């Protein structure tokens, strides 16, 4: 093909997509401190915008190439024996979705952040971190082997830490950052063990090699813990940490200490979905390990309902959204666990639209309220900040799953797949549906408490104002995406094709359950799901539309309000004993007693020896000479030992030769 070279303008230089945000981060981080904000804004938006443009061009070329999976090894990174980890990037259908979500939503959130952060200190630092995050996230989704993916995986963890603790003078923010980092370490430990196991089994960590070899393996039986099952469970352990699933979800609600754009970008739209991405990317492994799949489905389902119940009673607008995120991530894992990877990725995409929208709208509310986050101190805002209200409403309708908004299609696909699953599918479906009711309830509760009813704040102190255009325009774009984002799957309801699932089919292959002859069932389940959402809406309306007050917390409400006391449980069973052990054993015995003791002991011993031996240093020149002579004699005796040894042993009287 003569035009072949021309076709792959960006594709052959795929590294440019992650490199641009890295450059932006470096420039802002190194030079931005002395620059006016508009320069910093220009660099940050320029780098991410260009990155988005490059991603679009790469995707266009990908389609022009007939959607052939693209993979290129740019350079060798680690070579040890027969192990190779290279800077290899790939672009297939799954990556296309992820890259567009990361760069597209990321760019919108960058624009929003220029407005939201305009009056904050450390403006350049914020954008440097945010761009760095984009770099690592793009590495994560573009990587063509586990090692490079892990680089991105750890990198986004670092940026998450830095951005949660952005207001580092605030102790709660610094603590939340540490908590996120440490909890993620637990998951990453499992992830690394999983990688080691895969290397042992397949002799490589390259996606192509591993998945090709794994595909030829005999799948483990249900309940059998073979190599693949254990490797998958370990990888999933990493995913529970990064994607905030039970039992490692505890860091995500605390992560709301970070600025709201960070919550939207990292802790809702992109980073926390990395676990889902890894599970979907490793679908070949997971489909060969039904036990691991079952665990994924159960954990996802349990997290979905668990977080949804907590979200129903939280007073903090961002905390509600945080638990909502945990819950929605549970849905994605539920989808992966029942083999509907395409549906999981579909929900990942739509969720990134509407959850980013919800967080940014919440940020706009907080901005309007001058920093207030407690919903009991809001109310009646609908008429004052109309744009934010409409956008928030769009996001709410999308997440609760009313047709024709995005969440309807993706959540419907997940529940449908769960219903069809052979392993306790009905139970998973039932719990998922219950979680959907709860989702609808807490979201409409949020809307009514914030925008409806009468105002519960002091108008003399709070000057409510609509946010600037840099914040509302991204909101409107995301609101539009939340509306249309699910329409790829719309024809499927009317017996037509599901364009999204068909697009991903080359990646997931046979993993996708064929949904023939079940359209009437799917349609029925969709109606049930909408009715469930409507039920949540009605309950929330009855409870919160009128005159409301905080009230006292008792019984079940109190347990939910205190998040099932999970943090207290962890404090008592893990953190507390660990602190005790560290203080009383590792510090006072091991460190002070053994380590300091041995070091001090060596010092004291040396001092004592020196004290004794220093008397040989008399300062008298001739005594030194005597030592020299004694030394010379000893050396000569050793040199001539072979000569006088016979005389020594035979001991004859005439020793002179």
């Amino acid at each position, binding site marked *: 093909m003569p035009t072949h070279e021309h076709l792959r303008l960006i594709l052959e230089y795929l590294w440019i997509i992650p490199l641009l945000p890295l450059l932006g981060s470096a420039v802002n981080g190194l030079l931005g401190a002395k620059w006016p904000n508009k320069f910093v804004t220009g660099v940050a938006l320029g780098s991410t915008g260009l990155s988005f443009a490059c991603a679009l061009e790469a995707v266009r070329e990908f389609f022009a190439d007939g959607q052939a999976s693209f993979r290129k090894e740019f350079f060798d990174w680690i070579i040890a024996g027969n192990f190779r980890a290279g800077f290899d990037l790939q672009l297939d259908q799954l990556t296309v979705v992820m890259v567009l979500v990361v760069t597209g939503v990321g760019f919108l959130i960058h624009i929003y952040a220029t407005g939201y952060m305009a009056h904050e200190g450390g403006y350049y630092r914020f954008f440097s971190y945010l761009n760095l995050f984009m770099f690592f996230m793009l590495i994560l989704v573009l990587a063509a082997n586990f090692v490079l993916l892990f680089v991105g995986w750890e990198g986004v963890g670092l940026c998450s830490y830095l951005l949660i603790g952005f207001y580092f003078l605030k102790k709660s923010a610094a603590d939340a950052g540490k908590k996120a980092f440490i909890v993620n370490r637990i998951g990453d430990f499992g992830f690394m063990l999983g990688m080691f196991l895969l290397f042992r089994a397949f002799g490589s960590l390259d996606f192509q090699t591993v998945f090709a070899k794994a595909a030829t393996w005999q799948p483990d039986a249900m309940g059998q813990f073979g190599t693949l099952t254990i490797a998958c469970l370990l990888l999933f352990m990493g995913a529970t940490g990064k994607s905030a699933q039970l039992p490692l979800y505890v860091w995500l609600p605390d992560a709301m200490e970070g600025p709201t754009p960070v919550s939207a970008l990292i802790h809702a739209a992109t980073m926390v979905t990395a676990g889902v991405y890894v599970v979907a990317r490793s679908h070949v492994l997971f489909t060969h390990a039904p036990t691991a799949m079952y665990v994924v489905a159960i954990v996802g389902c349990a997290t979905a309902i668990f977080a949804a119940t907590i979200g129903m009673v939280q007073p903090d607008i961002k905390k509600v959204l945080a638990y909502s995120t945990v819950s929605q991530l549970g849905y994605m894992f539920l989808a992966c666990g029942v083999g509907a990877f395409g549906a999981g990725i579909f929900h990942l995409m739509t969720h990134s639209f509407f959850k980013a929208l919800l967080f940014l709208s919440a940020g706009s509310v907080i901005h309007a309220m001058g920093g207030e986050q407690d919903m009991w101190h809001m109310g009646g805002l609908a008429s004052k900040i109309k744009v934010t209200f409409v956008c928030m409403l769009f996001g709410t309708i999308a997440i609760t799953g009313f047709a024709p908004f995005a969440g309807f299609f993706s959540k419907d696909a997940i529940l449908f797949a769960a219903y069809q699953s052979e392993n306790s599918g009905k139970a998973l479906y039932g719990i998922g549906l219950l979680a959907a009711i709860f989702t609808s309830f807490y979201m409409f509760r949020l809307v009514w408490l914030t925008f409806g009813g009468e105002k519960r704040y002091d108008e003399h102190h709070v000057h409510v104002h609509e946010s600037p255009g840099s914040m509302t325009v991204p909101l409107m774009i995301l609101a539009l995406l939340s509306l249309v984002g699910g329409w790829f799957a719309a024809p499927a309801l009317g017996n037509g094709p599901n364009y999204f699932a068909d697009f991903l089919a080359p990646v997931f292959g046979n993993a996708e359950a064929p949904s023939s002859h079940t359209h009437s069932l799917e349609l029925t389940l969709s109606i049930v799901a909408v009715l469930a959402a409507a039920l949540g809406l009605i309950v929330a309306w009855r409870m919160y539309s009128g005159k409301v007050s905080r009230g006292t917390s008792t019984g079940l409400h109190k347990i939910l309000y205190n998040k099932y006391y999970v943090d207290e449980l962890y404090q008592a069973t893990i953190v507390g004993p660990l602190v005790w052990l560290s203080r009383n054993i590792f510090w006072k015995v091991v460190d002070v007693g053994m380590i300091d003791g041995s070091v001090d002991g060596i010092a004291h011993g040396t001092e004592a020896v020196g004290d004794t031996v*220093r*008397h040989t*240093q*008399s*300062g*008298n*020149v*001739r005594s030194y*000479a*005597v030592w020299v*002579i004694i030394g010379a004699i000893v050396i000569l005796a050793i040199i001539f030992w072979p000569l006088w040894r016979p005389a020594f042993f035979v001991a004859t009287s005439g020793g002179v030769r």
Partner: protein
Amino acid sequence: MVPTNYYLILSAILFGLGIVGFVFKRNIITLFMAIELMLNAVNLAFVAFSQSLGKPDGEVFVLFVIVVAAAEAAVGLGIIILTARNRRSLNVERVDLLKL
């Protein structure tokens, strides 16, 4: 011709005298002379071996030693003069300021 052994024995005796003088005498100038005596004993051994092996290496070495000894004498005598001026004494046992 005088056998090499004789030279070596003479050299050993002179070196021994130098050591004994260096260790047991107290006058710095005597110590200095003892060092010179040891150097020259070594020089004697060098030339004796040079003669016996028929190679010029030993003689070259001796020239070097003489040069070094001359330099050393210049420095050493300077130190001795300074010591004598500062301490009003040539007793080596009183030059022990570096002692702990």
